[in-house]
């Protein structure tokens, strides 16, 4: 988690982005500079309240002196750094990351930004052929590292598989999982220190998994829901949301958000109650909140049933 230490005065360094010079505090990331300048830099695995893992590579930029492109989310600025975002190479890599992901994943709930970037960068996932058949439940998690069956190329491999529903509070729809590591980070050192899930397997067959893929109730999971809070693609969501989407009654346009303070304990977390059709469907907390950094516990996240017992 990036905690900006306001106590120290940070030296300013000079960075040139697309020929424009910026004076920014030392320790800032290239993405910070781009954001301040108002650029629309795509991002998937980055979150302001998580340590950058720079895994998705959709935010890459050119940095003078580096042969490969550089992930802007993680790379810290250095004095005299020369950055370019307006090149064909940058556009190509961003497009391809979006295209490759869309060719393997269901991105239909990844939000408006992702949908817009797909169009802006011209991602065309269909050129890899029709999607192959979805995997049976649990099959993807049982593949052995270093082995795969020889493809014939007639269809494109995807991560499609059934939704995992093994508890009352949330579902895991791994056909949408882009392996951004956010849930693992939130479950681990960045927020919850529970380590109920990790990346298992290798390469294209990697999955987010509990040990031996046991159901969540058998794992260390404490249902804080912080994994849901950070998931960018809808792979993790509350049962309430899942059921509404399945029933066709999910209505994000009609949703209202009410801020309140959690009353369960004395910490005083800010809660945002997402209400659809007079029912709380999700509870979140702002990521820039000084106490929660967007993370909550089971009570704040799911303890709303008593509010709406009617």
């Amino acid at each position, binding site marked *: 988690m990036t905690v900006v230490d306001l106590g120290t005065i940070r030296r300013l360094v000079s960075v040139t982005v697309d020929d424009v010079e910026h004076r920014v505090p030392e320790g800032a990331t290239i993405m910070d500079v781009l954001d301040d300048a108002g650029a629309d830099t795509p991002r998937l695995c980055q979150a302001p309240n998580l340590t950058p893992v720079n*895994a998705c590579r959709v935010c890459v930029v050119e940095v003078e002196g580096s042969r490969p492109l550089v992930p802007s989310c993680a790379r810290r600025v250095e004095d005299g750094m020369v950055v370019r975002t307006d090149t064909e190479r940058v556009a190509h890599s961003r497009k*391809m*990351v979006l295209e490759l992901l869309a060719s393997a994943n269901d991105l239909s709930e990844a939000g408006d930004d992702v949908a817009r970037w797909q169009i802006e960068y011209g991602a065309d996932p269909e050129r890899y*052929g029709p999607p192959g058949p979805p995997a049976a439940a649990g099959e993807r998690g049982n593949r052995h590292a*270093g082995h795969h069956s020889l*493809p*014939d190329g007639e269809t494109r491999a995807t991560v499609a598989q059934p939704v995992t529903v093994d508890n009352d509070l949330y579902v895991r729809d791994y056909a949408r999982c882009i392996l951004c590591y956010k849930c693992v980070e939130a479950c681990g050192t960045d927020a919850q220190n529970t380590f109920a899930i990790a990346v298992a397997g290798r390469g294209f067959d990697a999955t987010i*998994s509990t040990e031996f893929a046991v159901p969540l109730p058998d794992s260390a999971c404490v249902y804080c829901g912080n994994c849901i809070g950070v998931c960018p693609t809808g792979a993790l969501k509350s049962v309430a949301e899942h059921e509404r989407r399945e029933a066709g009654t999910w209505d994000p346009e009609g949703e209202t958000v009410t801020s309140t303070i959690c009353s369960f304990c004395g910490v005083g977390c800010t809660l945002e109650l997402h209400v659809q059709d007079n029912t709380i469907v999700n509870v979140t907390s702002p990521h820039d909140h000084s106490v929660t950094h967007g993370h909550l516990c089971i009570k704040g996240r799911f303890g709303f049933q008593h509010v709406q017992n009617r």
Partner: protein
Amino acid sequence: MDLVLLPDAATDAERAAVDGVVGTVSEPRRDLLLPAFHAVMDGVGWISRGALSYVCERLHVPPAEAYGVATFYALFSVTPRAPRVAHVCDDVGCAAFGGEDLCAAMEERLGAPGERDDVTWTRSPCLGLCERAPAVFLQRASASPPSEREGNPDATRALESSPHDDEPGGDHAQIAPATADAVVHALDGEDVPGPDPVVSTPQAGAPDLELLSRVGVVDPADLDSYRAAGGYAGLRRALAVGSARVVDEITVASLTGRGGAAFPTGTKWAAVAGSPEPEKYLVCNADESEPGTFKDRVLMEADPFALVEAMTVAGIAVGARTGYLYVRGEYPAAERAIERAVAEARRHGYLGDDVMGSGRVFDIEVRRGAGAYICGEETALMNSLEGRRGEPRAKPPFPTVAGLFGRPTVINNVETLVNVLRIVAEGGPAFASVGSGRSTGTKLFCLSGVVSRPGVYEVPMGTTLRELLELAGGVPADLRAILLGGAAGSFVTPDQLDVPLTLEGTREIGATLGSGVVLCFDSSTDFAAVLRRIAGFFRDESCGQCVPCRVGTVRQEEALARIVRGREIGGRTVELQLLRDVDRVMTDASICGLGQTAASAVRSALALGLIGEETS
């Protein structure tokens, strides 16, 4: 953090295996995760829920993370599996040279891979025995120590002086060239003879060798024999002249890394030597898994003391007190040779608290890889040593600043380190006088495929490819293409044989020295199969962390499959454009060298028209 463990209990055999490695350690020791899993695999043959829970309890590792680690490595199994498994190489150096035939024969004898639950077989990427194709690696699990088992006198002998003598556990062996009969007998417990490094080193005994000078000359198990051949003169001199001078000599020698990236060794050493941090590490990268590469294996099997001495020189020069040697899991003979040499050196005061009476402290820990090409990437290797998934880290910070356990770390390839002995003995300028430009000293090359005398060859940098082939029995008749530098390298053609083998010379023709692979194919080669194997290799070995490589390697393999089957979507031009697009994002935007080079060989093969017409 409180550990929440599954209720399954470990069996006595599983506990014994884990305890044998963990001993009485009670503090969290995540770095022992791989050794503990190896012990379970060797003792029991697979990692059960109970075994994993017990490992987690002993080492204080959350079970989901431990599971993530166990499932990362090809040599570990988290599902029940036959305790004795033959890994049959079907990679580019073996497939057409008996590997595919052997796979067919194994299928006939033992059924499909994984079918039987007593003994079975599986396909494997390159086993680093390409000069003796086809190659097989055996995992033979057993709860009793190898020394107590009947009918395995060789294993007993080989392990005699190993520090792990009385641990329970099976053994591992390599067979090359392998026949189905030999493999089946070995699976049944029959003795497997150890390697004969001289066979792999046709130049052995020749007068003008440096790196290979002791191969076949010294007894790899005998310290006295090594000393009689001049061994430990280098360390003596290094201790006499002092660390600063040693680092200078390496810089002056202009030694570049032999692991594939060709980074100046002196620069790394100087950075770590100059760091004010109190704790620093040296790591020797002996994970050699680049298809077609086997030079480090031969060095370790035939002249292990040289590597131990070189690591000691390096460690002391940069201020490290511990050196880790990460040896490829499929290299049991090399591992045994090194373990024995380390134990001997320690016994004679060449390692430990007072190296050669100098008062300097340095010791070596040997760790075994577990089947993951990516763990040869330096930061992935460090994660692996720390008991994490072998996922490369973002750079910066570079290992010289924050490497193993977050400390300044020098990591070098086996061959790079062995060069150090010559540099301390003769001085940097003498070393730099061989070769040219940044390419100084001698270089090892791994010749295999259609050459008359395959093996490891040592030549001065700047020798031409043609001269190298002459050493190995002449330019092969009907030579069609050479894979230079490995699967991460590229193909060159017979009209390019006069390229001087230097960093600069190969770059000029758009190729690379890589790890020294020279894999020769004649015109009877099915290049479509070769390319598909290379594409499949990268798809299997991608760690999965970054999108360009994780998905790109899959799409590359699929597109190639369509092209070689004549099933192009929208025609060949469209498919080639698709491949180029995937190639570019992998090369430009992947985190590490694996993704950045995953399209290299395919690109060059297409350009040369090795499948279909030339494309550029």
